């Protein structure tokens, strides 16, 4: 707990002098910890002269910020219109079956998180997904199954 606060303080210090630093700080904290730990919030609030409630409000507003760690691997399948037009329902089902977890959840062993995303800007090569930051497109069910195997569950 002590360590979380110290590491958070070091991150916050990097943004001294940056106007409106809340989002950059939260991104950096999440990058360091994999999520925004509860114990980071008072440190951030104090540094920015804001209330804990305000910082919590920001964390909870944005889909990207998570209060619990994600899985070691992160699979995001696009569910927006262009990918729907190319059968993203089947891609979602393919990942769900291969990974053995429903969309929007993390596996019990913490290996993988499967989440929806609403547009990756890969709409002319739909359907698309992003796996650990790497974009993949023109997917079919077989590709989803292969990609799920590759992330090594």
């Amino acid at each position, binding site marked *: 707990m002590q360590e979380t606060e110290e590491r958070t303080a070091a991150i916050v210090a990097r943004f001294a002098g940056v*106007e*409106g*630093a*809340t*989002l*950059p700080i*939260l*991104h950096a904290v999440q990058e360091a910890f994999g999520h925004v730990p509860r114990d980071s919030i008072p440190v951030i609030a104090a540094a*920015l002269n804001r209330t804990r409630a*305000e910082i919590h*409000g*920001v964390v909870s*507003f*944005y*889909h*990207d*910020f998570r209060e619990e760690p994600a899985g070691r691997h992160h699979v995001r399948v696009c569910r*927006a*219109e*262009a*990918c*729907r*037009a*190319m059968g993203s329902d089947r891609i979602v089902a393919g990942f769900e079956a291969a990974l053995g977890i429903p969309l929007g959840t993390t596996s019990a062993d913490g290996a993988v998180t499967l989440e929806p*995303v*609403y*547009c*990756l*800007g*890969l*709409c*002319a*090569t*739909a359907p*698309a997904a*992003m796996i650990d*930051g*790497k*974009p*993949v*497109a*023109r997917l079919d069910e077989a590709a989803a199954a292969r990609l799920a195997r590759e992330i090594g569950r």
Partner: protein
Amino acid sequence: MTARLFVPADAAAIAVGADDVALELAAAAARIGRSVEIVRTGSRGAFFLEPLVEVETAAGRVGFGPVAAGDVESLVSEGLLDGIGARSLGLVEDIPFLKAQTRFTFSRSGVIDPASLDDYRAHGGGLGLARAAAMAPAAIVAAVSASGLRGRGGAGFPTGIKWKTVLDAPAPRKFVVANADEGDSGTFADRVLMEGDPFVIIEGMAIAGLATGASRGYLYIRSEYPHAIARMQAAVETARRAGWLGDAVAGTTHAFDIEIRVGAGAYVCGEETALIESIEGNRGEVRAKPPLPALKGLFGAPTVVNNLLSLAAVPFILAEGPEAYAAVGYGRSRGTMPVQIAGNVKRGGLYEVAFGITLGELVEEIGGGTATGRPVKAVQVGGPLGAYFPPSLFDTPFDYEAFAARDGLIGHGGIVVFDDTVQMDAMARFAFEFCALESCGKCTPCRIGSTRGRETLDAIIAGRDVSRNAALVEELCDIMRFGSLCALGGFTPYPVMSALRHFPRDFGLPETAAAKAAARETAA
């Protein structure tokens, strides 16, 4: 002789294997003892051809694509390194999809090395900024006004008027905000440009700084675009070293610098006041207007908030003159629009073209119809808040006013094509679902209306009290349209009502005359 090859490092090209193709090309060349230089460009936007490999020849760049990593060995043995082979597409510039475009903003994307400012300059980059540096601010604003440029985020507000408002607002500091929170499904023009020609964005922002007296710019990029973020961060560093940004922009006495901000997965932050809140470090909640951001925007200062594409159009306008930009277009929509054709389409990609081209030409002729080969049933134009158009309305010209007259919008220029297997009641339900998911919660019509709308669509889909519930949806859409603070709640009725109006049978409702005509077109 060293062969010079070009392989896109655009995220969509990488998503279909461009990195592996580049590796294979290097390996295949090495195996036959040929030296190669592989330039990683952005994409030209012809995504149906990606990964598109280009080879420099005496006649010009010759293309091959789409290339799979497994094809590389045989392509090289057939002569790819010399631009030869039965599978050659010929000169890239002559590919019909590319040749017929009017590329004002995207002239360099896919052509140049996006990491090289020298390459940018060698292809005409920087001329606009040099011109602007020698002009009075009011003259720059006048040029932008004369070009007829309108906001490419979707609202279509005249860019020159916005800039003039900020220029005329006395304040100790002002800001330029470039909106690259490109969340609309079916749009990717911002992404392609950031990855393929990042300096044109920096140039456009710097010109906006000179024109309005702003000394600081923020480029707000959505987090779903990691490749674009990395490319823009590197480009800003390079531009600083070259003196394009800093205390003396392009040799002037004007200071201007750019900070890149990364979104956090909130669609509503594409709305300008929510975006301002997000940069300030708050929940991305929409502000009531007035005050206009141009007078009281970021940190309370006068702020130009422009879509990235609006700003990127400005260097051309300054370099070639506003008349050259205004010379093409349709009605009050002057210049070009980078139209993005996506979804279930044979030839998907970015197509920059003068306003006035019809929706049908874009979908059928340029896009080539559906990828599945089935009839087109509907296209959604303008992102998740845009209307669904049936083929019976394909004569609509691409123009802000013409789309508004048919209860639609062009938005950021995205077209998503659906074949006849799409269920429009499910798409209407999704529009409400997405609105509920992304609503900032500030105004009631959007926050509550979206959820009630989804529930009512669920009832319709289940066949309960269909005509009564359809009337309820219509009434709800009226309230959302006129009672919401911003376009999220205000425009969600577009996809819902267009689906209901044009495809009543999908909702279990009796056919109307208009919908009958639409059905005949689909069958034809």
